[in-house]
């Protein structure tokens, strides 16, 4: 694949919060690319930096250092037209369906706002498009004239997805889109997302702590730990045959049938991460040099993993 095909490319991106001596390394040198039309899943525990990564991809926060590229151009160097295009092509769905819709706006205004902002179509056409996209997510026509409080969490999340899709973006960043939903609703929303992806060819960045859900919908999976990517590769490889000890621990925890030992320890503070490999303090396979030297991401069995001993596990 050529560089121009990457919708979003991150190069050694770092994001820190706070001032010395309490600096939080939320994202600590992440490089990855999201290709057109692919679904990249990002998993990890809370505080691993996955949501910070999402906010940076959405241009809600600038990286502290490193470069983020949109269709090959540095985000900071976008001209006005390119920036508008970026705002059209990359959309988002967030976790909390109760916070995602303006409670004082009718659904019609919420859905058509992106079209209004980008001065697309006439008022009538915008309404038609809103109606069409609602049908796609399985909601009736009369939804348009209602207010958010008339809908359940699952319905609101469908509306949020419809809103993200109305500009026919190339990429949607979904940050924990199903974790606030009831168990019986999650599958509905996951199926809708999969259907829409097939229909529109949209790419997703799918962030969640529910590994099974991520594994089901993603083409590739990135596993994050304390601000770093520890493993990234094809969903099948990462889920079925994890190379990194942390990935193993995470997937074992997600599988009720796995009779493995419970994981050790708690994630350390992102203010004072352990030296060397961040995971060594909880790693059952850690050796002395793990604390000394941080492993780089390198190819292991067809995917990238950041572990000195990935092959010998």
């Amino acid at each position: 694949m050529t560089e121009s095909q990457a919708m979003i490319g991150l190069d050694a991106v770092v994001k820190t919060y706070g001032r010395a001596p309490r600096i939080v390394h939320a994202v600590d040198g992440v490089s990855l690319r999201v290709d057109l039309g692919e679904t990249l899943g990002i998993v990890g525990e809370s505080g691993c930096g996955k949501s910070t990564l999402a906010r940076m991809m959405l241009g809600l926060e600038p990286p502290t250092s490193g470069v983020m590229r949109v269709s090959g151009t540095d985000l900071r160097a976008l001209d006005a037209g390119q920036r508008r295009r970026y705002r059209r092509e990359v959309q988002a769905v967030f976790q909390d369906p109760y916070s995602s819709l303006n409670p004082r706006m009718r659904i019609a205004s919420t859905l058509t706002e992106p079209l209004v902002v980008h001065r697309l179509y006439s008022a009538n056409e915008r309404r038609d498009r809103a109606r069409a996209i609602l049908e796609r997510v399985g909601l009736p026509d009369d939804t348009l004239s209602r207010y958010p409080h008339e809908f359940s969490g699952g319905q609101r999340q469908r509306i949020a997805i419809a809103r993200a899709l109305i500009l026919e973006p190339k990429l949607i960043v979904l940050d924990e889109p199903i974790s606030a939903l009831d168990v019986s609703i999650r599958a509905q929303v996951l199926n809708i997302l999969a259907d829409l992806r097939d229909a529109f060819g949209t790419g997703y960045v799918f962030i969640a702590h529910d590994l099974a859900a991520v594994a089901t919908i993603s083409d590739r999976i990135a596993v994050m730990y304390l601000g770093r990517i520890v493993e990234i590769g094809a969903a099948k490889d990462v889920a079925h045959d994890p190379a990194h000890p942390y990935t193993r621990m995470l997937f074992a925890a997600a599988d009720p049938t796995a009779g493995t030992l419970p994981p050790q320890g708690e994630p350390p503070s992102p203010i004072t991460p352990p030296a060397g490999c961040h995971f060594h303090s909880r790693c059952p396979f850690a050796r002395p040099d793990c604390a000394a030297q941080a492993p780089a991401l390198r190819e292991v069995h067809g995917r990238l993993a950041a572990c000195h001993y990935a092959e010998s596990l």
Partner: protein
Amino acid sequence: MTAPLLEIEDLAVDATGSAGTVRILDGVSIGLGEGETLGVVGESGSGKSTLAAAIPRLLGPGLAISAGRMRLAGEDVMAMTPARLRRMRGAEVATILQDPLHSLTPWLRIGTQVAEPAVVHDRLSWKAAQARALDLLRGVWIPEPERRLRSYPHEMSGGMRQRVAGAVALSCAPRLLIADEPTTALDPTIQLQYLDLLKSLQREHGFALILITHDLGVVARTCQRVGVMYGGRFVEIGTTAEVMERPRHPYTRGLIASMPRLRSAGSRSDRLAIIPGQPPVPGQMPPGCRFHPRCAQRFEPCDRDSPPAFDLGSDRRVACWLERAFGT
């Protein structure tokens, strides 16, 4: 068969609010022996948290038990005096709440909060109670327990605080522990640790456990028996292995089938089996079987009559008309 520790029969809880009186729990019956574990699974609005609050009789404002019987070790809980209830709550039926960030008092030291029940219920001196608190903190695998006695809650991580909540619950050696979504706010790896801790504490102390959760995976790991709640009722109760492998109620079956699986990783064309529609909201419960609007197998009696719990033997009960139709 030993006398059950907890017997609940036909328990109903009503909420009084702007929309009049709404039934939150309806016809709930469970029995639990000493040292047993029961998982209670349900979605939001299923009434599972109300059940957790109803057993120690500490329902929120506007909620009241309106019918049913409840016995703890043979004693009628509904007839307890306020003083007896307080003793029951602290010393016999302990509870762990969902949110470890807000369930400890911010301005009291951990030591005080863990020692309190022993001082109040077991009439220990503060000094003796502190010593017991130290043991309890050690017992829930808290590192440096001596130092932690003097800490405040905000100085600890969520996982640590939830362990402290466990220590608080165990301080008077309760016979029943109710854990209301104890791991929902925790990270997956920490969840697993906590469930492991609960199991090992149960082995050590022998209390009975009611584990309330929305996560079937949690139940599968922890509980001998599981009850599935829907719309304020139990739709299916049985041993965990039976229910998970051979679910009989259409809701249970749908729920298990709709769970994403690691096995299906990376297959773009796969779709999950789904239960259509939404879980019902208290106050807008459908008539008859509460699941019938979402049920693919509904037939003639379902929208009219609420199905009773058909007893299938070996401690298995299913509230679905299909059981009558097909015979048991």
